[in-house]
């Protein structure tokens, strides 16, 4: 199965008043606002990838636990293969708490990047694909891989 994947979103005891505890109470709202401002700084902007499309397939399809051969195609808006990119993927489960796996892809024909991706457990996975194009532009994509089979 080949999927056309849209651009990902962001990937990236009661005390008395006047006591030290009372002052701490009043400090909480300030701390919360400051924390929110800090942590919201991490939701960065777009990738500026010029509309490069990513399609991918696995062998076997659907993949099962263990290593699966992964093939990714990068295509420009004009329909031309995007060659010469450096591509890496990070595989994560949708469920939190599982260690991710990583794979560097190699280009076997212009615009087609291949490698082995390891799935350590059955279930829903997603890949975070990071590519640096030949002209230096960077692309990030989230590629959903639902239903990895248990062996």
């Amino acid at each position, binding site marked *: 199965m080949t999927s056309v994947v849209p651009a990902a979103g962001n990937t990236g*005891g*009661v005390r008395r008043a006047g006591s030290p505890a009372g002052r701490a*109470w009043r400090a909480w709202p300030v701390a919360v606002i400051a924390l929110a401002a*800090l*942590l919201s700084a991490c939701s960065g902007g777009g990738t500026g990838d010029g509309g490069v499309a990513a399609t991918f397939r696995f062998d076997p399809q659907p993949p099962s636990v263990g290593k699966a051969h992964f093939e990714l195609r990068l295509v420009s808006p004009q329909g031309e293969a995007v060659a010469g990119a450096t591509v890496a993927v990070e595989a994560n489960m*949708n469920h*939190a708490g*599982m260690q991710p796996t990583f794979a560097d892809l190699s280009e076997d024909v212009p615009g087609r990047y291949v490698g082995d991706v390891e799935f350590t457990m*059955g279930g829903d996975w997603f890949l975070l694909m990071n590519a640096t194009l030949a002209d230096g532009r960077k692309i990030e994509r989230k590629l959903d891989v639902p239903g990895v089979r248990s062996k």
Partner: protein
Amino acid sequence: MNAAPSERLTSRVAQSSASSDRPLDLLAVPGLRSLLLRRRWMQGPLLFISIVLVVHGFAGPQLAPKNLATLVGWVHSRGLLVVGLLVMGNAFCMACPFMLPRDLARRLHAPKLAWPRALRGKHVGIALFVGVLFVYEWLDLWASPSGTAWLLVGYFALVVLVDALFKGAPFCKSVCPIGQFNFAASALSPFEVVARDSDVCASCSGHECLRGSESSRGCETNLFLPEKAGNMDCTFCLDCARACPHENVGIVARLPGAELSEDRSAAGVGRRSARPDLALLATVFTFGALLNAFGMVSPVYVVQQQIASWMGTTSEGAVLLVLFASLLVVEPVLLLGVTAAISRRAMPRREPVVAVAARFSHGLVPLGFGVWLAHYGFHLLTGLWTFVPVTQKAVADAFGVALLGAPQWDRGGLTTRAVQPIEMGMLLLGAIGSLGVLWAIAKRQAPERPRAAFAPWGVLTVLLLAAAVWLMAQPMEMRGTFLQ
């Protein structure tokens, strides 16, 4: 120099604990007493972590394994909660972060209303507990950082709303779904808050443990310490210990699970046999453990597809509703009903089947706890160190500098193969505990024919154990949307 009476008492208890003629008392351990009595050092950091989870849940990456809300909220906190219950007691409630905003709200608006009598049992809390389990599956909260953050915000709002309006601690006692889970599971905890010396209580006229003192409030869940029995409704807040002028309160080692077979009248709780809501809590706790674990393995998707096909729907909510009704209502009613009907034949007084089922349902709690431990322990142990790189990344994103170093994404936990024997051990221990408690109940209910009364419950326990072992032996398939 003569020591004050309270100091002499503490010293005596410490000595007797050390000499092993009395069970271990954590409040008599030098240094530990002051640490446990000062609750804020636990609540403050947990409140801070909760706020971080909420903020990161909303503002951080909306990818569950990369977000602290989903990672810490569903993997680490649940795992640590059950481990705390296993090794000590109701440690989560002791350090509950919701209590700080609740106390703040009460400073701003003193509660004046009494919690309605009709809501004083566990029904609201049980309904919310089931509701959280349902929403968790329906909305895939485990995969939704913002959904998890909304749940936390809702929790804080509900705590503040209920306890700012109503006197006592109705949220803890009757509403909080985590609290009801903890109350049920803490029956298996090795420690209990008790009065050290009943003679001291007998000569006490102030009853500060219940009424409070100038320095501390008394028990807000109405547990009068001399008449307290078991961990039900005890949040381990230690208000009683702070209030007691005689330092006669201890956290004492005891036989886990023994309270489940008892039926004496306990302060603030009453008799188990007169509390159908407690039987309902025990039932939902046990069968909910199996249901929650079932939701993580591959056969559930086959079942769900079949239900969807039979109903002619692609509505996940509708299918889940049928699944929940089947496993949390139909299955317990059938299994407990048939087992109770057979068991009661051995009893001298033919009680209604429902009453027999209610009595014995408490005996299944150890097995249920074993399933929760196996399930949540699996997630905790396999993902033990995954919070490290996610925290490093969150800090780097927030401050623009990798203050905690570059994310170490190779940090994981134990392998599933290593965790599986631990899971099986938890299940087996739970089943052994259930058999012990059910045997004790059978001896009390059918003193002349305890074996005949026990046998059907023993068979049910073995069947449920087999189901749990089968579930845990299935390959985990953590999946979300399944209907097409």
